[in-house]
């Protein structure tokens, strides 16, 4: 490896596959000189323009606003035109592989079929539902606070980075995913919109909506615009309670169980939350997990039995209870 002030000579690996001609994908290596201001897109351009013209990827604006060039580097979602290359090389010890966002959806090299992404997007009514006046003489008034309440959700550039980083989506193809849920929030919170109830109903459905988010924060990490989709998902949770749309089911009872436990003990009662959200019969599904948790000391064998309260109390319980009282905006 040669280092100097301006450039660094490295070998970049790239995932290659053409659905038309290749039976299996393969990795190809390219020798490149990387400068300190080079972006990942510059490297991809150089591979295409100087090494192999058949290397294919989507790109357009080259400054992080069109959302075309989302890829992964060593599994990390990046927007190629905004990601400094040296930073990544340092992070991964000069060993980086350019990969598509989702290997199972690859058409060619970095280019994937985003059909599922756009279908999910379309499901949440991604537009302001209102009568658009053709020749308005006045704008709709909107306060600065109302504008700020968008929380930059309107900055989403549909790059798909969060969508293809979401493990819940990977496990459950029916889940709307962080990008579509961010869109659901963006329009539902807009004071000009009239379909928030409809969107909240959709996003409260088990298997599809917000309750399938496992709160892993991958989407927040993946977003090149720092939109923080999980924040919007949390907001949707709250709005569902505010609008009285949240139905009484395992998911909402699970959320409720948390508060109940905190109020009671100042600690989380792991066993109680299962009993509360799934009932005694439902609890038996989890016996295997319970056994493991017992071995790890997370629960006690008497936990979950009715009328036995063996959870220790926080010494700050009264303070915690006060905090809950002050901060709770929704009636669960």
């Amino acid at each position, binding site marked *: 490896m040669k280092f100097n002030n301006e450039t660094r000579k490295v070998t970049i690996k790239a995932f290659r596959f053409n659905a038309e001609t290749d039976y299996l994908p393969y990795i190809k290596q390219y020798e490149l000189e990387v400068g300190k*201001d080079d972006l990942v897109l510059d490297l991809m351009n150089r591979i295409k323009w100087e090494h192999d013209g058949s290397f294919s990827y989507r790109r357009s604006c080259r400054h992080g606003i069109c959302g075309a060039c989302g890829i992964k580097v060593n599994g990390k979602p990046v927007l190629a035109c905004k990601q400094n290359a040296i930073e990544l090389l340092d992070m991964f010890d000069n060993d980086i592989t350019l990969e598509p966002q989702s290997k199972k959806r690859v058409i060619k090299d970095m280019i994937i079929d985003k059909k599922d992404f756009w279908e999910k997007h379309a499901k949440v009514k991604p537009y302001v539902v209102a009568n658009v006046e053709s020749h308005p003489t006045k*704008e709709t008034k909107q306060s600065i606070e109302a*504008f700020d309440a968008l929380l930059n959700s*309107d900055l989403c550039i549909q790059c798909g980075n969060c969508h293809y980083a979401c493990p819940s989506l990977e496990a459950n193809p029916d889940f709307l995913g962080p990008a579509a849920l961010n869109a659901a929030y963006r329009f539902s919170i807009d004071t000009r919109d009239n379909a928030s109830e409809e969107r909240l109903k959709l996003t409260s459905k088990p298997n599809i909506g917000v309750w399938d988010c496992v709160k892993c924060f991958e989407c927040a990490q993946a977003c090149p615009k720092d939109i923080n989709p999980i924040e919007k998902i949390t907001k949707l949770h709250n709005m569902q309670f505010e609008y009285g749309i949240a139905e009484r089911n395992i998911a909402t009872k699970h959320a409720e169980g948390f508060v109940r436990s905190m109020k009671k003990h100042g600690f989380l009662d792991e066993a109680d939350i299962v009993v509360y959200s799934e009932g005694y019969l439902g609890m038996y599904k989890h016996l295997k997990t319970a056994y493991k948790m017992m071995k790890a000391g997370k629960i006690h064998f008497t936990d979950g039995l009715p009328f036995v309260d063996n959870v220790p109390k926080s010494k700050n319980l009264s303070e915690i209870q006060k905090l809950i009282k002050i901060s709770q905006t929704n009636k669960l």
Partner: protein
Amino acid sequence: MSNNTNVRIYEYDAVIVGAGLAGLAAAKELTEAGKRTAVITKLHPLRSHSGAAQGGINAALGAEDSTELHEFDTVKGSDYLADQDAVELMCTKAPETIRWAEHMGAAFSRDAEGNIAIRPFGGQSKPRACYAKDRTGLAVLQAIYEQAFRAGIEVFDEWYVADLLYKNDKVYGVSAYNIRNSEPAIFNAKVVMFATGGHARAFRFNSNAHANTGDSLSIVARHGLPLEDMEFVQFHPSGLGGSGVLISEAARGEGGRLFNALGERFMTKYAPNAMELASRDVVSRAIMQEVREGRGVGKDKQSVNIDLTHLDPQIILTRLPELRELAIAFQGQDMLKEPIHISATAHYSMGGIPTTINCEVRKNPIQTVEGFYAAGECSCVSVHGANRLGANSVLEALLFGRHAGENMVKKLNEGIKLKKATKEDANQMLEEIRRIKTSNGNERVSALRAELQAGMTEKAGVFRTKISLEEQLSHINALLQRFKNIRIDDKSNTFNTDLQEAIELGHMLEFSKFIVYGALIREESRGAHFREDFPKRNDEKFLKHTYAYMDNEFNITHEWGDVVITKFEPKERSY
């Protein structure tokens, strides 16, 4: 692939090429009027470059502002080459157009009363640029796309339009292929609209997206139709020093100051009244003059500093967050703490496909082509003349795009007939693809393109002379010859972006010739076009629109068209 038996023929009332603001606004009007409409784009609509517009969209909404003032500023900014009837239409309809965008859901920033917020911009006598933080284009593009999507527009995304169907003064469709699998098709229509955006990719140092290769210009020119005022290319004063990526005029609008290497606020010399907020051409020349005289900063001393550190950090954080991020990402400079290196970057094309005020494409200065419309940056209705004012482009695209849509609806309601296309109409496209795929020479597309771009920036850029332009013209001629001797690596039919880049280079070479040719014959300096050997404006000879035509051997000829002057007689222009 030159066999046309598998060419599918789609029939529509209207076909729109390009899905940025102009294309989507037209598509929405047509679809809502019940017309069968196809929108074709080589990207996805939301990837269109309209979304990259940062600073604002003009409308005289301020209490002290008026549409007449907006008109005057626009005409003055254009160095009196704009057609004043079109300017009047634009400025009069601007307030309703912005409010229409707002009603559609565009997330505009707000003032304390809850109205759309406005900020000052270069060349404007009043604060007039309505904005959505520093992502105005994105906000408006999203809104129009969302409502067009809601209206049920039909989009063919990632399709490449390669040719226009044009016979006997009538346009009746386009030929195109699906980028995903190279499947060719004819889109046969009663009316066709081009809304393909800009072409500043022809320059090495530019602010444009990779997609902005101006394909539609040479597609039109190949049929002997004219291009208008192509010599007028706007160089934006604040491209990031290394990449040319844009730092919006909002940076100056919010109070940014320009300094040279000696720490002098040099705009005092060039525009003592308007200072940093003079018109873009004026500021760009000032910057490049400082650089030429050795007072530049940064790498090779090719830039100057823009300083925002005296501003309240809250202004930067709330109104210019994207700009700050860009400067950090591209050159590691944080505008909260230090000045940013900027330089003039090829940004916008005032010229393009000539149209009437109703967006009908012109065959020459007096006649139009039946069934053919254009709007947005690829067109030249001429509201920008020789130099566009900041925040007028987003307005033009949205407003004239919609206007084109309305006029197409009208034309369809009048009962314009469909001229049936045949599979043979795809032959020119199929032959072009076959030629490029089978060409087995030793020239690389990327190398030829880099040569073209370097020459355009150096010889047909901010400063031009007869000698530099003649050199560039013969360089382009040589490149056109060498282009016949290319070889591409990718012969597949799946997402063949190698092929696409080659086709696009062909277009870039051809329309670039129009830019250089126009600059050569216009022996004056006006707006963005500056001839060092003719530094004065010459109204007597050149208060005219250039109409240039290309023959099959890429030879160019021209004639002049009249400028529409109504309210504002040409005066000397100073800021």
